Every structure is written in C-alpha cells, then in structure tokens.
C-alpha cells in the first residue's frame, strides 16, 4: 500500500506531445478513477505509472520513491487489462500463481494463498480449467485474482469492464468496489464510462486532450463542474447549455428568451457571453403554457419533440423557444405526466440548480 504522486508528467511521441504536464496526488488506499473520451491520455498515464511506457518528462512517485527508471516488476504494482490478458495455455491455477513465481515462499504457503484468492473470487471450481473454457466475467476475475495474489502497493485497472456485457459489467463493478473496501489498497482505474467513474471512485480525474480538466469527488464534479466539458461529460443525459448574455442590470438574457435573475452574473461585465447550464433532472416540466408564477430562476417555453420513457421517469426532448426552436433541451419528467410530441410546455428550474460558464473559455463562473 502506498501513495502515488505524479508531478508534471509529460508524454511525447517524437514531436507530438500527448500529455502536457499532469499533476496528481493519490492518497494511500484511495480509489481514483481516470475518466475521459478516447485519446485523452488516461491510458497513457496509467501505463506510465505501470512502467510500460517511457516517461518523457516529470516524475512518478510510488510511496516516496521515484520510479521513472524502474522496470514494471520493481514498482510493486499489479495491472488488470481490458482484454484480461490471461495466459491461454495455462490452467487457471497456473495463471493465478504466475505472479507468485518469483516470490520466496514455501510451496505450501503459495498453494494456500492461491486457493484463498480463488475462494474469494469464486474461482475454486475452475482452477484446473484453461481460460478458453471460462466466460468473460470469469476470465476477468482470473485477471483480478492474478493481480491481488501479489499483494501489490498499487492496483492499476485499464478499462477492465469494457469487454463485458451490461449486466456482467454492473456485477463486476460491484465486486471491484467490494474488493477495494476489503483490501483497502490504492487503486487507479481507467475508464471512458462516466457511470463507472461515478459509482467506483473516491475521487474522479477528468481528462481531455492530455490535460486534467477537474479532480474531485463524484459529488463535486457532478454538482460543481469546473467547465463545460466536465458539465457535458459527467451525468446522463448531458447538461443542457443555453447561450445567453449578461444584461446591463446584472441579470441574464438567454438568446431568444426573456431575462432571468441570476446572482452570479453580477460579477460579470454587461454584455459578456455566457452559457447557462442546467441538468435534465433539475428541470420541471409544466404542461400548461403561460403559467408564469413569478418564482426566481429559469423559465423556458418549448414544444415537446420526442418522449423516451425509462420506467420510473422519462426523458423529454424539447425544442425550446430560443430563436424559433434552434436549441434542443432535455428534461426529465414524471411518467405520470402525459406529454405528447407537439405539446407546448413550460420548463422551470430553481436558481440554485443553475450553472454559469464563460462562453469563450468554457470555465465555470463562481457562484
């Protein structure tokens, strides 16, 4: 068990710089998820921590040791790969024991540990089988077993759930979380799926184009996205972003819609362009038009274009009344409401649920 510290980490392939100086402190026993779209550098970062990629600049520390020049095996890490990477020609027992090969332990102790790990992961009945005879979920458990048998300082997971089907993914996700609670070890987990990131992480690191966009707990990044990228990336459906400008009296005027009061807008110069963010969950859909109770916050009128029932609630896609319906807004509504395509509705949102971003830089404007 150990901390991991990353200082100004840079990765260059010839001239192209793909990672532009990343800084990250991971506490002992913390579960950190690196998340971002493909090509954002999250896997590269993980592989540099593992020692599978050379470090072009900066430092990686595991514990208080700089590991830049160390071979993977000297870093005391274990890694689980997306496509399992278990050895197809060895039995499950051999696969799990592979990491113990060099350990100076008596054979009986090794055997005891292998069986204990297999028991933990419910692999005991399959110990004598070859990987080809196992299902995807079982294979991934073998890969995890091979990692935990070595009792490493840091676990690295590289999209371990991507190859599993939806049901198995949820189940394995839960197992990984339980594993972390039981072992209490430091885990760095890479995924492109924000749901995995939200459910698993103690802290989420959102990356894009080789830069860290935001680091925070799941609640922080959900409630206070640092910029429009994070706002769109985290949460499903994505946050609605409505363009507008700051009015002379410190309020906010959405393009093609009336002015609304927004406390944060006061700090901005009149006329500056902004984006108003609001999550689908925070929007109330009122089916009667013109019911303008003068509550503060957002009010939008629009026409329903598509309704997607999800069971407990439904997603409503609306052409909001901004510039004659150019803007699509997604809202969540109760299934008890009867909404049909073409219905005229009013959307409202409480002022504290609104987010404000600078249109130019995309950065959040402090409330």
């Amino acid at each position, binding site marked *: 068990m150990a901390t991991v510290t990353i200082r100004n980490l840079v990765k260059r392939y010839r001239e192209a710089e793909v990672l532009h100086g990343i800084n990250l402190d991971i506490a002992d026993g913390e579960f950190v998820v690196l998340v971002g779209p493909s090509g954002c550098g999250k896997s590269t970062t993980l592989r540099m921590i*593992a*020692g*599978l990629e050379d470090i072009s600049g900066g430092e990686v520390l595991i514990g208080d040791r700089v590991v830049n020049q160390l*071979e*993977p*095996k000297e870093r005391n*890490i*274990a*890694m689980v*790969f*997306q*496509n*399992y*990477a*278990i*050895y*197809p*020609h060895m039995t499950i027992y051999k696969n799990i024991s*592979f*990491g113990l*090969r*060099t350990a100076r332990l008596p054979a009986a102790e090794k055997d005891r540990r292998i069986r204990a790990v297999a028991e933990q992961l419910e692999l005991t009945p399959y110990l004598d089988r070859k990987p080809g005879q196992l299902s995807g979920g079982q294979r991934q458990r073998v*890969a995890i077993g*091979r990692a935990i048998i*070595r009792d490493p300082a840091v676990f690295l997971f590289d999209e371990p759930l991507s190859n599993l089907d939806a049901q198995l993914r949820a189940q394995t996700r839960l197992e990984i979380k339980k594993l972390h609670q039981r072992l209490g070890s430091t885990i760095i987990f890479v995924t492109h799926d924000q749901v995995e990131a939200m459910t698993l992480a103690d802290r989420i690191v959102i990356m894009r184009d080789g830069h860290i966009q935001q680091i925070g707990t799941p609640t922080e990044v959900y409630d206070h996205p640092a910029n429009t990228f994070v706002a769109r990336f985290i949460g499903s459906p994505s946050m609605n972003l409505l363009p507008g400008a700051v009015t002379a009296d410190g309020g906010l005027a959405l393009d093609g819609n009336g002015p609304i009061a927004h406390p944060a807008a006061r700090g901005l110069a009149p006329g500056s362009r902004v984006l108003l963010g609001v999550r689908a969950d925070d929007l109330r859909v009122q089916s009667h038009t013109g019911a303008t109770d003068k509550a503060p916050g957002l009010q939008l009128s629009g026409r329903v274009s598509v309704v997607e029932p999800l069971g407990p609630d439904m997603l409503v896609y609306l052409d909001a009344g901004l510039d004659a319906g150019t803007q699509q807004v997604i809202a969540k509504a109760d299934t008890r409401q009867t909404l049909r395509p073409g219905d005229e509705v009013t959307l409202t949102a409480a002022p504290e649920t609104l987010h404000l971003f600078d249109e130019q830089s995309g950065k959040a404007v402090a409330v």
Partner: protein
Amino acid sequence: MDNIVGTKSRLVWVVNLSALALVLLWLFPTFGLLVSSFRDRDQITASGWWKAMFPAEQTLQYRAPGAGDAVDENGVFVISGNVFEGGRGSVKSFGTSARDPGAFPAGETVPADDGADLTVLQNGDFRLTSATEFEGRRGMRIFVTSVTPPRFTFENYGRVLGAEGLGRAFLNTMTVSIPATVIPILVAAFAAYALAWMEFPGRALLVAGVVGLLVVPLQLALIPLLKLHNEIGLGKSYLGIWLAHTGFGLPLAVYLLRNYMVGLPREIIESARVDGATDFQIFLKIILPLSFPALASFAIFQFLWTWNDLLVALVFLGNTQDQLVMTGQLKELMGSRGGDWEILATSAFVTIAVPLVVFFAMQKYLVRGLLAGSVK
C-alpha cells in the same frame, strides 16, 4: 431463405468434390506405388498394380533339356520335367512355336518337331516322347500360358534397403534433416521474439533485411559458401550442410515466427512484465508455448525441404556411402536400375514414407500456423 440455403449447400458440394478430386489425384499414384513395392518382379512386368489381387496370366518360354537328359523307357525316349522349375503356377495352354504359344489346352498330347509328342500337364509337368533318339544338345522350346496366383513380398524392401544402399542413405538423410530443422528453429525463435517485442534501435531495418533475404536465391551462395567451408576446414561434412541449411532456412523462419509473435496480444506480454517476468522468461513461458502452431508449421516446411533436397546435399556433402543422401541414392538408382520397377517403386515409397508421416501427424498445425501467421 430456402434459396440461399440451397446455393450454399451447392457451393459446399463443389468444394467437397474438388477436394475429393485432388485427394484422389495424389492418393491414386501413391497407393499404386505402395502396392507395386510389395509385388513380385515378374508380376509387375506382366500386369498393372490394379490387377495385383488377381492371378496374372503370362506367357513363359521354357527350354527343355537337351538330348543328353533323355531316358530310354522300353524303346521310347522320354524327356520330362516341370516348366515352372519348382515354382508355383498353373498351365492354361501351351504351344510349340513362338507364333502360337497358346495353341493347345493343358493335358493334351500333341505332335512336336522331329516326330516327338509333347504333353504338358496343368501343374507344369511335361513329357516329351519320341520313338527315335533325340538329337542336339539344345532342347526344344516349350511355350506355356500360365496363370500365377498373386504374390506379395517384402523382398523388394529387403533388397532396396540392404543391397541397393537405400537404408544407409535413409540414415544419412535423417542425419541431415533433423539437425537442419532443429537448429534454425532454435535460432529463429529467439530472433523472432526480439524482432517482435524488444525495443532497440534499427529493429525495423533488421526486419526489412530479413524480408530482403527471403528473395535471394540460394544458388547464389553455393560456391562462396563451399569455398568458405573448405577454407575454415569444415570441408564436406555434416556440420557444413547443417550450417548451410540453417542459413538458407533462417529468413523464412524468422519472418514467419516474427509475424506470428507480433500477432500475439500485447497485453499478455505486458501483463507478464508487470508480474515480474524477464524477457527470457516471457519468451520461454509465454511466447514459445503460444507460438507452437507457427513453430510446428515451420518445422514441417523445413523438414520436408531438407528431406527432399538434392542440390544442397550434392554441393556440401560427398559422394561416399556414409554421406550420400537418399535423393542422391535415388538418382543413381534411376540411372542404373531404370527398368526395374520393383526397385524404383520401393525406393520411392521408402523416400516418401517419412514426409507422409510427418505431414499427417502435424497437418493441423500446418494449416493453422500458416493462417495465423498471415491473416491473424
């Protein structure tokens, strides 16, 4: 839907039929060779191998003993004997002149030359009787059309392996082929791993070099190599031919194995590295077992090629009995025994027997290894 299924099954039929045709095409002569190699020499000349199971009808010419062997039996001079001279057979008909060798059925008594009478029984016993004394030292010619039962024998094999020297040549070929297969695989497997998975400057250039070497004809190197062998004292020896075959086989081996190894999942190797394995351990414990199909398919190639090789053996080995390989021996037999089918058929079968066994034992790796190397 029915239509689609219908077309597909028809196509499958076409494929199966062509496969069957190809199989028959080479199985037929091979089987013929096998049958011929067990047949009696005389029967090979009398009938084709497809009639091997039936009695062969052939015309024999027998010269009866001369006048000196005649016996006087109560004033009748008799010459008797057996046309098969103790061999097996059954006379169907006989004759006294070459123009009509099957003129009379067996058992009949017919007049022969010089007032003599000839009787030939079915079992081959003949009796030549004459009232006057026989003259001349050369006996009369008797023609019989005989039916001999099929006869299968190992004599040909005994003869070919022993007297004709093919047994020794067989061992010589083994002595060439086995090390000439094992050595390049050992070398190429290491090289292929390095070229596929180890980072070092100039790697791409080396791979390109190997591909370039693939197209160099080996004839180009024969004379310079032999000169080199003579200069460093190897001369014409087994070590020399092992090295030569290794050199000629290496480009293909490295290329084939590298392509296969490159196709192995990167994660498996990285995972082993994270688990603390050194390059050598990764090679030994992960790469080598996983590359078995490619190794086997190259082994088959190299073995068959060195087994059938004549050119390299002629250049790098001597002509003496303890260095002549089987192809060389076969070539000599073709010259000296061109008409002896039983020798040639047997030699041919001895020669192809080992490749056949190797091929059938490892054919599934051959196909898989070839596909895996190229298409992945």
